Each structure stands twice: as C-alpha cells, then as structure tokens.
C-alpha cells in the first residue's frame, strides 16, 4: 500500500493505474460490513436494489410487501454500539408502501432511478402497474397500466434522445413506456410462450413463470435493448427498427468466425437455418424439431407457440420481423438475469438451468466461459452486478452471493450472510461496496475491510480472547 503511494508520489505509477489498483484491492477484500447497517423497513423479500447513477449516494430498494424505500448510504442516520457508536445505522429516508394513496397493491418487483438525476424513480409491480414517482414529493407522477405482472423495468443509462422505460412482464411482448408522452412507444414481440416440457427434449426444467423476466439496455448504444424471456431466448433489439436483430444461441460459440455479411438482409431463411445448424451436436433432438419448424417458415408452427402476429400464418412477414422465427435459445429454461458490462461489449446472462453465460455482444457468440456455479434461484428474476472494470461479476446463488472472475469463471469470493435466497445485488463502484437483498428482508452491505487503525478504536469493551484457564 505504502509502496504504491510512494510510487504514485514519485510518478512511477500512473494515476489511473494507481486508482484502479487500489480499487481492485478494495474490491478483492470485500466482506460483510460490521460498521454499516441498512435498517430495512421492508416486511417482504427485497427484489431489486439500485444506487443512483448520478451521485452514487441513494440506494433504492423494492420489496415484496409493495414497498419501495430510499436510503442514504453516505450518511448514517444514527449510531449504535459501545465505544462511540461503531455501528452506523442507515434508516430509510422515505418509503412508499401500500398505505400510500397511490402506492402499489402487490409486490414491487423492480425499482430504478431515473438515470439523469434522482428526482424521479420508477417502480414496476405485480399489480400490473409501472409508476413513475417524484422523489421529493413522493407522489406518483405517471402511471402505466401493463397487461400483466411486471417483472423488470429498465432505463438506458446512456440515453440522450429518449426517455423510455423498457418493461419485461408476464406477457411475452416487451413494452417501451415513454415518460415524456405517457404512452407505450413500442411493443416488441418476438419472445414466445414457454414451450412445453416435451418440446424441450431431455430438459425437464419446468418454469411456471411466463413472459419476459429481464430487460437490459446496452451501455454503449442507447438504441439497443436486450431482453431475456422465459422461453430461454435472449434477444437484441434495435428500437429504431422492427423486430430483433440478434437472437443469442448457446451453441454458437466460434468466436473467430464472423457470420457472412449478406445473409440476414437477403436470405433470412438461409441465415436462420444456418445459425441453427451450427450447434446440432449439442441438443440434436430439440434442434431437429426447431429446424423443421424453421424450415417450414412458420407454416408448421408448434401448437403451443402462439404467434404474436395476428395475421394468417402463411402471410409473408415483414423482412425485419423474420427473426421472430429464430428459435435459438441462450439457456435451457428461462433467462432470469441479464447484465451488460460497463463497456457494453459483453453480456452476462443467468438462467434457470443454473448456468451463467458470457456473450460477445458484437457477434452474439457464446464465449463458453465456465462459471463455477452451484445453483441459482429459478423462480424469480435475479439481479446481477459487475465491477466497472469488468473483472468481477456478482451473482446471487441461493443464500450466498458469489463473485466470479468474468474472464475465467473462477469463483473468487463467496459472500455468506443471508439466511434465505438472495434476489439482487448492486455493486457501487464509487465506494467499492456491494449491496445485497434477499428473501430474509435484509439489505446487507459488503464493504472492503477497514484499515488496522480503524480496527484499534473498538474501545476497551472490545472483542478479545478470554481464556479463563
């Protein structure tokens, strides 16, 4: 530590590398913080956590008891414990719950900050509503009625020319809600109703949920939206164009080879069948069926998969919509979590098949990094987190949160503290702190271990060896 500082002083170390080194050191030493408690006002499981993107100071949490709360994570509300209050308690600044006159009726599944400032935040709930709140007056300023339960809402952190809330719901169509107009701007259809168990071949993962579990905006392009559905597909949408332009296929993994330039625009059928043919060895049975469907070009659709398009099946689709027919899957079972790395190059996805996959956003290839997961929660969407330098990924694995090295998939740290399943985590790269929320109603803070000098002032009533004999 001191050597690095002296290196910085003499100019041997460059400021940015010094900065990064300290940051990664701190990140590597994360542990359950004893000095920072977030007092959760929630009486249900925590479903989503987000620290605001502008100040990095206010933590927004959404819980199953139809409440959302905001905490100041920089300044504690009160202190507790002997010897001058070593435990800083962070109580919520305010919370909105069922008793609020315009509050949600059922569980709030997602709460996000308006990316530009902390004056607004957006909540999505199982009561089919997406509400936009004014933070200062804690009043609802806008209401979007969705056709089904809302699983996840997302706003683009890089958007400059639109204010769209992407909403993944129990419905298969992804809707974009425009705050400026108060209406649905887009309806993106492409995800299908979860196919039957038999259709999955040897896969017997039964997901009761349906629709789109998770949505995520690209961090590099304000027009690109990524959605993960219960059908196991991850679709990339360019919201300026019709249809999705990319469907991730778990079996397409040859990074070096770029797809031919022409196929998508000219020969859709060709491209889709070609894409599918690559990975036939992995799951031949399902592939065969899909191929047959794809070859039939919509004529022989499986009865379970309702086509979102209302027209007759034989009608020729708009060229942009042809990717609808692409049945490639990114996961067996539902896609429960998505996270685009901060540079927008890679996408991390988690599925109910207890796999985490890393995708190359540009080509849509599976990078085949093997993450040493044990088990993931399957019934609920989970919220992943990455460090801003894209080195560590934090993944809720049942009652623990695990930190993986993104590029090797090695499990570097395991954070055990929750007594029930963890649903969400958020890494604040400013303070190098990790916040996790779980079904046990707790929001835990994981912070870098303090310096030794801090450890000393625990007071005379400290925690010491006490051998009687």
């Amino acid at each position, binding site marked *: 530590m001191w050597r690095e500082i002296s290196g910085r002083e003499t100019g041997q170390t460059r400021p940015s590398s010094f900065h990064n080194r300290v940051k990664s050191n701190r990140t590597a030493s994360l542990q*359950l*913080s*004893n000095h920072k*408690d977030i007092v959760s006002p929630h009486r249900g499981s925590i479903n989503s956590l987000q620290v605001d993107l502008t100040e990095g100071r206010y933590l927004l949490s959404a819980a199953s008891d139809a409440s959302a709360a905001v905490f100041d994570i920089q300044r504690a509300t009160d202190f507790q*414990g*002997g010897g001058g209050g*070593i*435990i800083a308690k962070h109580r919520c600044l305010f919370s909105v719950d069922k008793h609020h006159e315009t509050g949600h009726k059922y569980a709030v599944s997602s709460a996000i900050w308006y990316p530009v400032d902390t004056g607004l935040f957006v909540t999505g709930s199982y009561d089919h509503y997406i509400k936009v709140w004014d933070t200062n007056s804690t009043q609802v300023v806008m209401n979007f009625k969705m056709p089904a339960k809302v699983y996840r809402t997302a706003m683009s952190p890089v958007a400059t020319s639109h204010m769209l809330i992407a909403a993944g719901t129990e419905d298969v169509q992804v809707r974009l809600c425009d705050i400026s107009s108060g209406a649905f701007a887009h309806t993106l259809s492409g995800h299908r109703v979860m196919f039957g168990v038999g259709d999955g071949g040897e896969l017997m993962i039964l997901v009761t949920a349906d629709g789109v579990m998770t949505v995520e905006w690209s961090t590099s392009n304000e027009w690109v939206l990524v959605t993960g559905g219960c059908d196991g597909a991850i679709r990339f949408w360019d919201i300026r164009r019709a249809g999705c332009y990319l469907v991730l296929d778990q079996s397409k993994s040859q990074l070096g080879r770029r797809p031919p330039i022409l196929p998508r625009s000219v020969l859709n059928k060709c491209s889709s069948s070609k894409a599918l043919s690559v990975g036939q060895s992995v799951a031949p049975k399902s592939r065969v069926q899909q191929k047959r469907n794809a070859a039939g070009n919509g004529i022989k659709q499986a009865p379970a998969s309702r086509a979102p398009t209302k027209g007759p099946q034989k009608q020729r689709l708009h060229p942009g919509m042809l990717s609808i027919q692409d049945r490639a899957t990114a996961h067996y079972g539902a896609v429960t979590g998505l996270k685009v790395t901060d540079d927008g190059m890679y996408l991390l996805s988690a599925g109910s098949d207890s796999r985490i996959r890393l995708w190359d956003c540009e080509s849509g290839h599976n990078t085949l990094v093997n993450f040493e997961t044990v088990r993931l929660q399957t019934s609920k969407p989970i919220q992943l987190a990455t460090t801003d330098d894209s080195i560590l990924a934090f993944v809720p694995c049942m*009652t623990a949160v695990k930190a993986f090295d993104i590029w090797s998939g090695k499990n570097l740290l395991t954070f*055990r*503290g*929750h*007594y029930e399943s963890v649903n969400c985590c958020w890494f604040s790269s400013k303070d190098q702190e990790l916040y996790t929320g779980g079904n*046990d*109603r*707790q929001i*835990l803070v994981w912070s870098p271990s303090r310096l030794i000098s801090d450890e000393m002032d*625990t007071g005379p009533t*400290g*925690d*010491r*060896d*006490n*051998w*009687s*004999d």
Partner: protein
Amino acid sequence: MEENGGKVRILIEKATNSTAAEVDPRFLKAIKSVVRHSDSELRLAAETLMDLMKRDHSQVRYLTLLIIDELFMRSKLFRTIVVENLDQLLSLSVGFRRNYPLPAPQAVAAAMRKKAIEFLEKWNSSFGVHYRQIRLGFDYLKYTLRLQFPNLQANAARIQQERREREMRTKEILLNKFETLKENFSSIKEEIQSTVDEIVECLEIVRDKGESLMPGPLDVEDEEFEGFHSSELRQIRLDSLKEGEKIHESAENKVVFDTLRELYKLLVSKHMVSVQEWISVLIRVELADNRSRDSMLKELIDTRNRLQSTKKKCMESGCALPDPTKNDREEEEDFWEEGKIESTGIGSSSQPDELKGVLSAGSTCAKVKSDASESGDARTEFNDPLGRLGGEAESSSLRTKLLAEAPSVRTKLLAEAPSIEWSSFLDNWGSRVVLANQRGLELDNHWGRVDPDAVIPAKKIAELNLHSTVYKEDRDQIQPCRAPLRKGGLCQRSESSVCPFHGPIVPRDDEGNPIYQGTPTSETTVDLGADLAEQLAKQAVKNVRDRDNEESRKRKMDKHSQKRAKLAKIREHNEAVLKDAALASTSRSAVIGEDVERTRNKKETLASMLRKKVTTKDRLAQKLLNTRTSEATVRQLSLGEDTNYREAFPNQW
C-alpha cells in the same frame, strides 16, 4: 505441528463420542489447553467441529455445539472463523431449514435446539456489536422465524428490578414505623416503666410477708449440719432451703399474687415483644440523621435489659409461676411416666394401685423432701441414707419383692419370645391395616387429589413384611491352647484349630499335658517303658478278640454290603445322569444370562441412541396391518355384503 493437529482432532472426536449430556470436563480442558497455544490448532478445531456438526446424529451435534460454545466465548480467532459459517451452524443446530431437519434422536435434538438458541442469545449479547453475522442470525431467528428466545438477560434485569422495588417498599415501611415510633416513644416508655414499677412494688409486698415467715436461726442450724455430710446431701439441702425461701401463695396474699401474675403476663407477652420489634426496626431503618435513632436504640436496649431483669426477679421469687394448678399437673405427669417405665418392665401388673403407691415412695422423694424441709425430724431422717421410715418399711419391702419377681417373669417371657432384628416394619407391629397416605409427607395438592383413607391391605403388608433370617452359627467359646510354656504357665493363645507355636489344639489337663483319647500311640509306649510287656500282651489279646469279632461281623455284613453296593451303583448312575442334565441346562442358561447381561451392561453407544424403541403400538400394528390380516378382514366384510346383495336381488347373480 502435523501430529499436534491430529491431537486436537482426536480429542474432539473422543469428546463427542459419548452418550452423556455433558462434555467430559477433562476432554474440554485438554481441548482448550491445546487450542489456546496455537492458531493452527484452533483453525483445525473449528474445521473439525464444523464437520462434526454435519454428522447425522443429534448427540454428536449437541456435544459439538457445547464445545463450540466453550471456544466461542474464549477465542477471538475462533469467533471469526465460526461466524463466517454461522448460518450453517445455526441451521445444523437449530434446524430451521425445513429441508434439513435435525436428525434423531428426537429428545437430544430438542435439547440441542434449545441450547443453540440460548447460545445465540448469549453470543449476541456479548459479541453482537462486533459481528454483524451474529446480529443477523439473531434477528433472523427472532424476527423472521419468530423463535422463542429464553430472554435470559431481560429476565435477569426484570428480577433485579423487582428486587429493588421490594427493597424500596420495605424501606418505606420501616421508615413509617420509625416515624410512628418516634411519635409514640415517650408514651410507650411510660407504659413500660409503670408496669415494671408495679411489678417491683408487688414483689416487695410479697417479699416482706415472706421474710416474716422465715425464721432466722434455721440457717445457722443448717450450716452445722452441712459440716459433716456428703456433698450430695448438701446439694439437696441447699435446694430445699431455696425452695423454702420461696413465698407460697396463701389466702391473704392471693390478691397480690394475682396482680403480679397479670403484670408478668403483660410484661412477657406484650412489652418484651414490642420492645424487641422496635429494636429490630431501628436497626434496619436507614436514615439520613442517625443521632436520634442511636439515642432511641440505646434507650430501648436499656428498657429491654430492665424488663429482662424484672422478669428474672419474678421468676426467682417464684411468685410469677404461671399457675399453681399447672405445676401440679406437671408433677403428676412426671410421676405417671416413671410408673409406666416400671410397669413395662414388670409386664402386666395385676395391682397397679399398689405399685403406684410403691413407686410414689421412690420417685417423689423431691416432694417429700420439700415437705419435710420444714420439720427438723424429717431432715434427720433424710440425713441418714440407710434409714428407713417406719411407716414405709412395709411398702418398700413389697417393692423389693416385686422388683425381684419382675425379672423372673420378664426372663421367662423373653426366653419364649422370638427375637427379631430391629427394622422399620416394627412401626406397624400388630396392626392389620396400614394407611397408605399417612407417611408424613404432605401429598395433597402436590400430586393431585389424594385419598387419605387409602389402606394397604393386610395381605400386602404381610408380603412386604416377610423377613428372612439368616442362620448364624453360634460362636462357641474358643479354647486356649494351654500348652506348657518353657518359662512356666500355660499358653493362653486362643485359636480355633491350630496354635502357631504348639501345633493343633488338643484337650489338655491342668499341667498342660494332652489328654489322649483312644489307643495310646508309640510315644506313650516309649515313655512308659516298664509296663511295655504287659501292655503288649494286653494289646495282642485285644487285637485277637477284635479280629474275631470283626470276622463274625463281616460274615454277617457281607450280604448287606453286596446289596448296598448294588443300590449304590444304581444311585450313582442316577445321580450322574441328573448331574449331567443339570449341568447342561445350567451352563446354557448361564451363558444366555451372561450374554443378556453383557448387552445390557454394555456402554450405551451413539448407534443405540438412534435405534427406535419398539412400542406396544408397533407390535400391534405389525400384527394388525400386515397384508394377510387386512385381506382377510376385507374378504370377511365383502362376504357379508355379498350375501346381503344376493338376498336382496336373488335373480341378479
């Protein structure tokens, strides 16, 4: 280091491999001392303990938990290690995860659960500030799962609070009492003083009268007498003198005595008690200003002393005797008791009146003495220890006769009576029935309703009282050796058969020569020498005669013996067969019994704790719920139905 590591692991494993409800303190001590001296040991211990917690046996987990608690309270490093996996530890010890219930045996599991919750609370109160994990676990169990925590600390605080309140209340009461005392102090003092004064006056009046009764020269005479008599007699005389000094109640001073008695009663029952009470109040009360209290205390103590001295005076003067009638009764009682003791010795006395008369002469000498103290001749009579009263001579002779007769009756009865060793059954000797619930314990309201008239039937009592007596050989007197010693005298050593110095004990005459019985041995023949020929001749004749006799007898016996031999042979054979059978059976049964014993005595193991006890219900279930029985039942039932059906619809089957 490596082998040391093995040590702590082995220690822990040994400590937890037991069926006891506690960890062996020696093991615990050893573990602590090993672990204290090295961190690596501690890490290993923590690892081992966590492994043991995963064992599928509640007993192992329970003991492990106890060890964990011991180390947890002591070592910081251990805390930091354990706290990392606290959720696991809790789920293994409390069993709050539904898919990981606590393993068998259930009883131990319940105990462990309770203990674990208790420990968690303890840990939280002492280390919760330093470990977020402990706080989290505690909060989760308490507020999410809503487990019942024993709340030891809160309870302790509450008890403390209650005690403090009680103390406050008593203090207040004392203070109030003190205040009232302060107000009434002078009046109380006056009252007491007046009573004491009255008593003193009364005593004086009585004393004056009494002195006039007592003649002066009597004392001088006494001293003369004392000069030449034994000390016992002197004592008796002194007593009698003292007795004589006492003023006795008579018709003229009856009024004074009555007053005195009343006042005495007042003094003892009221004033003494109240003064004592006030003193205790003063001692206990806490005041800011102690001066008034101290002065009051002093005065009260003085008052008490005065009261006591007055009481003593009253007692001494004898006029404060509680009641003359009571005194009489006491004497009566004494007398009766003594009479009873005598009568038991005699057995059934046919003339109780006479006996009583006799006994009164003996036992109430004190009374006689006191009566006699006033007359001189009576005194002289008592001074002579051997002297007998003329009037009483007859009765005393009767008494001696009776006393002489008594032992003979008694011994006669005793000789007849069976002797029984003393034991508790003698309590109910001779009673037919015994009350079951009258054993001195207050059973009512303790074990529910109790029938006080419950009776143990006589048969049962007889059965319970059946006592066996063990035959004891009467020790016959051991004869001394009596062999002549070199320095003269006889050996007095008494041994049962062989004297260590003089060989086998044989009967000897007064000089110590052995008395020979039967034929003389060669030794004697050498000794006798001169009579040898005669002796030999005699012997020869005797031998011949003997031989003749023998031969004739032999002939007679031959037949008998042959017969007997045959019988003996048969008997022998029978016995052998029986013996074999008996041996075989006993040996087998003995082995079996031994086996059973061994299994029963074998130390209870962990596996045996897991084994389920087969209850009556299980056995019944096994019998009733097997396929054959259930099928038979079904068949039987359906058969009945079938017949019904057939009867109802005869044309349809």
